[in-house]
Each structure stands twice: as structure tokens, then as C-alpha cells.
């Protein structure tokens, strides 16, 4: 009788990504116990536009930092409507880290995020509106200042306005002056708004 060597569990090698795997294999590997396997699967799924749903689902459960980073990178690279919708959903999460990661990814997707920005800024949840302003921080889009001015003109929630003023201090132009003055008048008893609006006006004056 021939001696049959029993199978031995092999550690996942870092070059395993070289092995050919199809979409189904990669999605299955997102659930592997080995973080290196999950990381490579997350990375390689960037080549599959249909992977957004699987990547989003994994992101909500994954705890390993390097795997999360790979998931977010792939979602950014795919950047389709499904990915953006999933990221918007993350803005409503109780997980602070997940919300912040979603904000950072959405900053990288100006073409996909711009069409939904007005809806985000009008969301019924003020926290989501604050995150929408946070996304504007480095969203390279010509309407950023216009959106911020609209926020400080119409937004009823003081913290959403405060977040917008903080950003206008950095990216505002003289076009924001009158809106900042009106904001001060709308919140006369809020020391932070008075401080932030004065600072923004001073900086605009320096420009």
C-alpha cells in the first residue's frame, strides 16, 4: 500500500496573487481566515467592475486594517454607482471609522459624487450633511464653493454651517463674503459661528 502523505495546511504566500483566479474565486477568498488572502482578493477584485457589492459587504465586516485599505482602494478604482451608493450608506453607520473611510474614498470620486452632492447636503440627517461638507474638503470640483455658500445661506443646523465655514476659511473667495456676513446675523448667539465667520472674512480680506 502506497504511503499517502496527509495534506498539510499551507500558510498563505504573499505571491499567491500570481495564481490565476476568476471573479467567483476572488469573492470566495474575501472570506478566507488568512488576512493576506483577503487582502490579495480585495486588491485583485479592482479588475472586476461587478465587484462593488461584494467589496462593500466585506468592508462592513472586515476588521484587519490592511484588508480594509485594499477594499477601499479597489472601491475607489471601480468607483461606479454601486460603490458610491454603498459609501453613502456607510455615512449612516454607527462605526466612526467606517464613516470616515467612506468620506475619504468619496473625496477621490468627484465625477461620481458631484451628481448626488445636492441630495447629500439636503439629507434629513444633519450628521450626513456634515459628512457631505467634509467630502467637499478635497473634492476637486468647480461647484465646491457654490455648494458651501448655499449651505451657510440656507442650512438651519449650526454644526453643518460651522463645518462649511471651516472649509470656506480654506477654499473661499470674495464671493463668499456676503453669505458669511448673513450667517453671523443668523446665529448671533453662537460664539463658534461668530469666531469662524470672522476668521473666514479676515482671510478673504487678506486675499
Amino acid at each position, binding site marked *: 500500500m502506497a504511503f499517502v502523505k496527509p495534506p498539510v495546511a499551507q500558510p498563505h504566500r504573499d505571491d499567491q496573487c500570481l495564481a490565476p483566479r476568476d471573479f467567483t474565486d476572488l469573492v470566495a477568498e474575501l472570506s478566507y481566515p488568512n488576512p493576506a488572502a483577503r487582502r490579495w482578493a480585495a486588491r485583485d477584485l479592482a479588475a472586476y467592475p461587478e465587484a462593488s457589492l461584494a467589496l462593500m459587504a466585506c468592508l462592513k465586516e472586515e476588521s484587519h486594517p490592511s484588508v480594509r485599505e485594499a477594499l477601499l482602494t479597489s472601491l475607489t478604482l471601480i468607483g461606479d454607482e454601486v460603490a458610491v451608493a454603498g459609501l453613502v450608506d456607510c455615512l449612516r453607520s454607527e462605526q*466612526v471609522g467606517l464613516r470616515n473611510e467612506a468620506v475619504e474614498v468619496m473625496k477621490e470620486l468627484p465625477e461620481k459624487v458631484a451628481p448626488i452632492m445636492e441630495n447629500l447636503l439636503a439629507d434629513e440627517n444633519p*450628521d450626513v450633511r456634515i459628512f457631505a461638507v467634509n467630502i467637499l474638503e478635497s473634492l476637486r470640483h468647480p461647484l465646491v464653493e457654490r455648494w458651501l455658500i448655499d449651505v451657510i445661506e440656507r442650512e438651519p443646523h449650526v*454644526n453643518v454651517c460651522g*463645518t462649511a465655514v*471651516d472649509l470656506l476659511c480654506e477654499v473661499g473667495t470674495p464671493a463668499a463674503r456676503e453669505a458669511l456676513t448673513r450667517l453671523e446675523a443668523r446665529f448671533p448667539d453662537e460664539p463658534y459661528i461668530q*469666531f469662524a465667520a470672522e476668521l473666514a472674512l479676515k482671510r478673504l480680506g487678506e486675499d
Partner: protein
Amino acid sequence: MQRILVIDDAATVRLYHRSILEAAGYAVDEAINGVEGLEKALRAPFDLYLVDVNMPKLDGYGFLQELRKTELPQAPAIMVSTEAARSDLERAYVAGANFYLIKPVKPDALLTDVRLLLGAPRP
């Protein structure tokens, strides 16, 4: 002079808190997120930490959890956030906060909490 580290990713908020605390006689340094806050604390511990919740890289909860694991003197911390749910306050206290202030912070409220934790400013 007691040293306070203000950790917030919003530059205007950091400047606002700094102006209130410095005018009251405290020395203030700033960090833009929890990672920079930890780096500064490890270089030279502070007497009090004023920590925002929502920050990139390492949020306020993560900062306090990491700070409480270090060998540093366990200085008090005030967490600051726009979120006002009871669960947010509970998470802050579990993470190691002593007080929780809801933004926008009023100068009197901030100074009351700071004085309760540190006492009056010392030269």
C-alpha cells in the same frame, strides 16, 4: 503652566478652542488627528486632552483607547462631538473620556469642565 492638547481635524475648531484656553491661561498645542495626537503625547505628555470624535486616520475613540493603553500618566480627557445621542456619550466614557461636550462648544462650558479637571491655571 498646565498643557492641553487640542485634537481636531478642523483647523478653525482647533483655533477656536486654542483661543479660549489660552485666554484663560492654559498652554495649548494642536494635533490634526488621533495619530498625531498620540505622537505628541508620547513625546511630551499633556495635562488634559480635548478630543474630537470624527477624525480621519484615528478617531477620538481610538485615540483615547490607545492613550489609555500607554504607560503615560492618565491625564483627563474631554471629548467633543456634533453627535448627542446617549450611545455616543456612553461610547466616549467607555473609551476613557471624563467629560463630553456637544459642538458648538460654548466658551463657558469648556472652561468649566477644564477647571473641574485641572483646577485654575497655574503659571
